């Protein structure tokens, strides 16, 4: 679930509010998105992937993280190389190659086409 919106990093572009398929966010009075409907988060990672400044973090767990969890701590996530890691893997952002262009996985059977998605 979405666990972190870093007010320090956020540039109030509203992108996450716009792209969230389940309308989890509202815009706060200061422009920073507020997680208003946490229960509706489907853990699809789109808000994080679309954040141009890596201000968001989605925990892979479909239940809320406890207070003090790493998923809520921008510094710990940065140190662990996790903040912004999905966007980077997708190849989104300046100077990055789109992930599909590199997506040659192993074939599941000898002679079969490689898995590419």
């Amino acid at each position, binding site marked *: 679930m979405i666990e972190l919106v870093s007010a320090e990093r956020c540039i109030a572009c509203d992108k996450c*509010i*716009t*792209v*969230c*398929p*389940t*309308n989890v966010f509202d815009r706060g009075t200061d422009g920073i998105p507020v997680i208003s409907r946490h229960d*509706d988060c*489907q*853990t*699809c*990672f*789109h808000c994080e*992937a*679309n954040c141009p400044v890596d201000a968001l973090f989605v*925990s*892979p*767990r*479909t*239940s809320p993280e406890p207070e003090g969890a790493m*998923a809520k701590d921008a510094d710990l996530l940065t140190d662990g190389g*996790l903040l912004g*890691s*999905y966007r980077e*893997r*997708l190849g*989104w952002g300046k100077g990055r*190659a*789109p*992930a*599909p*262009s*590199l*997506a*040659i*996985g*192993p074939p*599941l059977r000898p002679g079969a*086409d*490689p*898995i*590419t*998605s």
Partner: protein
Amino acid sequence: METLELTADVFVAGGGPAATWAALHAARDGAEVVLADKGYCGTSGATAAAGTGVWYVPPDPAAREAAMDSREELGGRLADRRWAARVLDETYERVNELAVSARFPFPVGPDGRQLRNGLHGPEYLRRMRALVRRAGVRILDHSPVTELLADPSGAVAGAAGYQRQGRQDYRVRAGAVVLATGGCAFLSKALGCDVNTGDGALFAAEAGAELSGMEFSNAYGIAPEGTSVTKTAFYHFATFFRADGSVLEGASGVRRSPIARELLRGKVYCRLDRADEQSRAAMRLAQPNFFLAFDRMGVDPFTEKFPITLIAEGTVRGTGGIRIVSDDCATTVPGLYAAGDAATRELICGGFTGGGSHNAAWAMSSGSWAGRGAARYARSLGSRAHNRRTLALGEAGLRPGGRADGDHREVIAAIQREVLPYDKNYLRHGNVLTPALASLDDVWTGLRASLGGTGELSVRTRQAAAMAAHARWMYRSALARTETRGMAKRLDFPAQDPGQRHRLHTGGLDTVWVRPERTVVEAAS
């Protein structure tokens, strides 16, 4: 606030692959198109969050025959060769179009040629949104449809819904409607699937349309326990273990019933220890999202055991859906078309999962055909298209028989209790399905009387109604198929019965009916 009133030649409900291909083709055919997505067109749905293989087979007759043969038996011989051939043709065209005109960054193989057999979801749908906008389609994001409109003859004449972010009702009077709302995964949190609550099937049934193949609705995806990541291809490299550390024999990425049985007793663990070093690095490139769960939980899936679970994917990965009656994906109701996972995929998959490549091919193909078909139908109406008297068709969850004091959350929990557990929906037995269906019928009776609302609440109550309807069509059909065919396995009828080699149609709301398809499925060759 006043209702937003719009007109269109074609109205498309949904915003995933089928919806965007439908909108694109309707617009190319000269239609004015409005597309309304429950979420955001570009991130909504099962494909955008995940990614998918594509049933992309070059037009070499032997390769095409082999592709069609490969699912013939698995699907219980319920697929239709003619449809499979036309889907292969259309998919080949559409994927090539993506590669050439839309410049999708497909990877390049060692022979210098692009590999076009897969699509990363986030990139694919982001580009589809751009194509649709460029074609002049008006997109309504965060605008779930709540009901269809019909003219006095019963022909579908538009749709109504609610804009969640604009907090405003909307109504679109249209010449024709394409339902591309996805399948139904019962809010199971399968990756990207919580917008897929089967709404389109409910709308279709209220308009008088029929469904087909609803017994093929018990797909479950493997995910690391407690997560949403239901990407399953790489479990091909897995060994599965019981809690005591012993190997769970017979379980594999595709053979999941031993996993389901063991999960009823205790935990099941997994390790991707059959992947060699070279494969491991390549897997990360092929599916960046598969590794999200592991990287973020600090697990090395190749060397460490991790607990797994199975998550219901209902008719998203199953094949049942709205019945199609013509080559342009019309339903039995004039002016109403269906595409993608909202429609039955039995025509190309039979009763076996359409997960991955087949559903993706079907979405592109059926979407393109439905969009064109809807545009032509709308044109045939001339000036009447936008000027018909319309009636609103929504009933369950919108206009209750009594006081609207029901709680949609309780209704949804009651539905989930009957459809999510493995011992009810996956390991199916008549003795279990019968009482489950009775409970669901009670849920339906209750919600018909007491569930309703306006605005945001109506979105939730309609989702509850759609899931209840879906569950009842599923179990009624599952009980009618007294044999094992495709994914519709029955513990009490473990053998295939040659006398039941027919599709099952279903429909109805207050009274659910099931009947075998009258025309015999054509022989395989």
